[in-house]
């Protein structure tokens, strides 16, 4: 009896969990099999849409079912810049998280290079790695496009669309790797970044300029000043209303660069790792599409390894229920975002394509290329061509109110 009991005990205590584990492995293996089986040259379309299931947003999957067809290509690999790697090696040892998720002892580079998704603090650590991913010492969004500016198209559900153009300048004054002074511009030790955004088309909005400043103090909200050409005055604005739509697009303030909220204002949870379909080497700029539709016609997609990060706001009144980011393990950029409203219903999905660009010394780095956001609830979408030009050496004085006072409608400030 005791032997029988022992056997039973072995079965129940060991065999059953093992079987369960095997089942789980088999199950997950099936999903992974579908992912890894995607080979360069393979075509995905309505006949085999299942092969892309789980690797793209729900809406894009429906479009594949409905006829959207594309090819899989070889993954594009990028090497991090040695200056960034050196800074990571030099400074990351002492970096840690504070009690409220704030980053302590951070100087430059990737804060947590030995990221372990099983770490109890994996969520906020991944969020900080995303925030401090390599973005150059400064950059001009749209600076590497043909026209040298961002083209943005607001597309209605019925296919009608409107264009607007703008440029956006970022500077990271306390994490400088290549441009002097390094690693920090004196006086700017407490500023994470400053952004200057200038609308240039159509004419009536041309010259509208915003200056946004992000401070490292987790309790200090961003500063925002807006110059309005219609009254030729600078107005102060609050940034606490992070959910307001940036007209006429479908982006809200926190959707810029996929997640632009203050890191400490959110809770983070790593949901796992996942292979996603993305495009790290966009072939056409802007990507070719039919008028009135956001789908890229002839771009190939590739399989990218990502961490899946769930982002929920600490503020219970925040507009989004949650955001799911898919962070590229190689670059810590986000390639796919799923957004759910407060009722938990699917709200928006957006992807960011990337493409190689060169620094002035010829080294290849990556930049966001075209970005698409779709509001699945109202059918409106926005497509943005935003390829960056890095390390332009912008003077820090450019990011001051003096620039807003002197801007002339339609004028370049460079």
């Amino acid at each position, binding site marked *: 009896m005791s032997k029988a009991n022992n056997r039973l005990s072995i079965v129940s205590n060991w065999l059953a969990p093992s079987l369960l584990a095997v089942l789980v492995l088999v199950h997950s293996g099936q999903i992974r099999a579908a992912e890894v089986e995607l080979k360069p040259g393979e075509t995905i379309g309505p006949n085999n849409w299942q092969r892309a299931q789980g690797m793209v947003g729900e809406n894009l999957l429906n479009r594949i079912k409905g006829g959207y067809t594309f090819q899989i290509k070889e993954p594009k690999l990028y090497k991090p810049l040695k200056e960034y790697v050196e800074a990571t090696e030099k400074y990351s040892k002492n970096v840690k998280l504070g009690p409220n998720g704030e980053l302590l002892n951070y100087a430059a580079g990737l804060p947590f290079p030995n990221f372990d998704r099983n770490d109890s603090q994996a969520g906020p650590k991944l969020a900080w790695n995303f925030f401090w991913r390599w973005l150059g010492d400064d950059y001009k969004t749209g600076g590497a496009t043909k026209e040298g500016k961002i083209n943005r198209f*607001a597309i*209605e559900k*019925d296919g*009608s*669309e*409107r*264009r*607007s153009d703008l440029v956006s300048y970022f500077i990271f004054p306390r994490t400088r790797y290549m441009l002097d002074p390094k690693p920090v511009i004196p*006086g*700017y030790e407490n*500023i994470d970044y400053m952004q200057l955004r200038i609308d240039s*088309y*159509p*004419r*009536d909005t*041309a010259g509208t300029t915003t200056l946004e400043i992000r401070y490292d103090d987790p309790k*200090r*909200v961003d*500063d925002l*000043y807006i110059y309005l*050409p*219609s*009254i*030729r*005055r*600078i*107005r*102060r*604005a*609050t*940034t*606490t*209303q992070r*959910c*307001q*739509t940036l*007209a*006429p697009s479908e982006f*809200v303030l926190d959707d810029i660069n996929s997640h632009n909220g203050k890191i400490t204002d959110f809770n983070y949870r790593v949901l796992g790792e996942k292979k996603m379909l993305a495009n790290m080497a966009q072939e056409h700029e802007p990507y070719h599409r039919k008028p009135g539709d956001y789908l890229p016609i002839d771009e190939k997609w590739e399989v990218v390894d990502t961490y899946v990060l769930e982002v929920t706001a600490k503020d219970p009144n925040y*507009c989004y229920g949650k955001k799911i980011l898919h962070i590229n393990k190689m670059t810590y950029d986000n390639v796919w975002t799923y957004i759910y409203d407060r009722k938990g219903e699917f709200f928006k999905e957006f992807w960011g394509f990337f493409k190689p660009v060169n620094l002035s010394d010829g080294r290849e780095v990556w930049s966001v290329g075209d970005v698409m956001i779709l*509001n699945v609830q*109202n059918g*409106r979408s926005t497509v943005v061509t935003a390829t960056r030009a890095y390390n332009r050496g912008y*003077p*820090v*004085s*450019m*990011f*001051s*109110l*003096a620039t807003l*006072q*002197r801007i*002339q*409608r*339609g*004028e*370049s400030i*460079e």
Partner: protein
Amino acid sequence: MERLRRVSVNLVELLFLVLLAAPAQAASILGDEWEKFFTERVKFSGYMENTTGLAVSAGNRFFAESNRFVMNRFVIQPEFNLDFNEKVKLFISWRFVKEPRYSAEAKSRHRVVSYFPVAPVQPLPNTFYDEDSFKPWEMVWNINPTDQLNIRLGRQFISWGETDGIRLLDVINPQDGTFAPPAAPNLFNLDETRIPSWGIRTLYTVRPVSNTIFEFFALPGFWDEAKQRVDEIVGSNDTGDLKVRYGRWSAHPETRLVLAGRNAFGNLFANPINPVLCQTATPTKIGCLVIPSTSRELPDAGDSWKIGTRITHSIGKLNFGLGYIWGFNPQSTDMVFKLKGVTCSSPIAAACAGGAAPSVATLRLVNDRTNIFAGHFNYTVDEIVSLPLNTAIRGELAFYPDEPYNISKFPGPFGLRAGPHPRHPDGTVEKNTLRYSLGFDRTTLIPFLQEDPLRPFRMSFQIFQRVILDHEDGIHPFSTAQKIKMVSTNLTFRVSTGYYGDTILPDVFVGYDPAGYWNLNPAVTYAPPWNEKVTVSLIAALYGGHNKFNSLGFFSEKDSVFLKMRYQF
């Protein structure tokens, strides 16, 4: 003065020549690549706009009171940006305006003009609102010798302050009151109604991280011919040139001062030549009447200089600035009448002395040279005792030492509502005046009022106050016998949002004077989803109040609706 003018003109010409060398240099560098230069360095844009306005209250088809067909204004404004290099840029624009009007209107105005003695006076010509000069509307050289120094040279706008719809520190450029209704920013925004001035503005960023910026500007004023902006609240009769200047938005003229059955507006400022003859309870003699001969005294070149300086700085979340403006104050609401003398309307002076002919008061409508001490701040308040406020607060302050006002004695002689002030024979008095405003701006989401719950409503509330220090009884606006209290207040509220992907854009501006006046300026704009260049707006400008001789009540018979179509290129 003429010598100073010549020297200054020569200096500026020299400077322009030096600057104009820039494109030549650019050409030589570019060689034959002019096409490339124009493609990459020259931008062309602008807009065309047609605004049609219709009076919906008062008025008649004879245009005698208010014009039924208020406006049909067509504007075309081409604009060029030339980026010569990273240090020198030029912006240049022209504004052409045509307002087709009907001769019936001019004839009608002609018929209703009352004038004494009878004379062939002329109303505004049909082409009064047109602008067809090839002189650049704006021409700004933007020069950056260093990263921290910016020089803007040319015909330009300089705007201080942050208020919305109403101006407080934005008093550097004059405002054109001829074509736009007052307090209606949804019809013509401030940028469309300011008049640019020639001059120089420099900005030196002392310390970028704290936005410490030193600013200096000088607008010499003598390159622009001073312009009579007729509709600057009050209309005027000039017995000198026999022109009657009542325009589209002129305030309701003072008609309560009646003597001997005639308009006695002039008696607000002066007594007749022989007032002794009128010392009865109800004087009826024509000799008791004073006729105003009003003309605008535009400043000489030297008097129209404006110089200003300001320093701005940030401490934490607080951004503030302190400044000073000296020079000609171009604001129409700050004008005063000055009595220059009383003459007889008859060539025979004895006719007035004997009470047989009315006297004529020569009044000059002037803007005095003034000093303004200016200050502003802005600050964001996120929450107060855990209550989310999410509001940007802004304030402006302007202190005018010795600001001139018109003053009269209430009640006046001969039973009139007001008459000349015995202690201020020229009809003016100077008082230290403090003006300030507080503004509260926030965006908020009101999901149940929106088809897209994340489209924000932008709301702005403002309070304006003017405090006349050492106030004296009898101070009144130049155009009416209506006393100005020591403290006057105006409130404004504005709300706007966007529906259907920001294709339907409502915007409502409300002004309120607690003394019992209001205005409403609602607008709804359609921006078609298929073309970003086109907008069509329906706008109203409505006014009300218990007294048509005061505040916003001035315009209570001028309610109008407008259709505005705009094409940007």
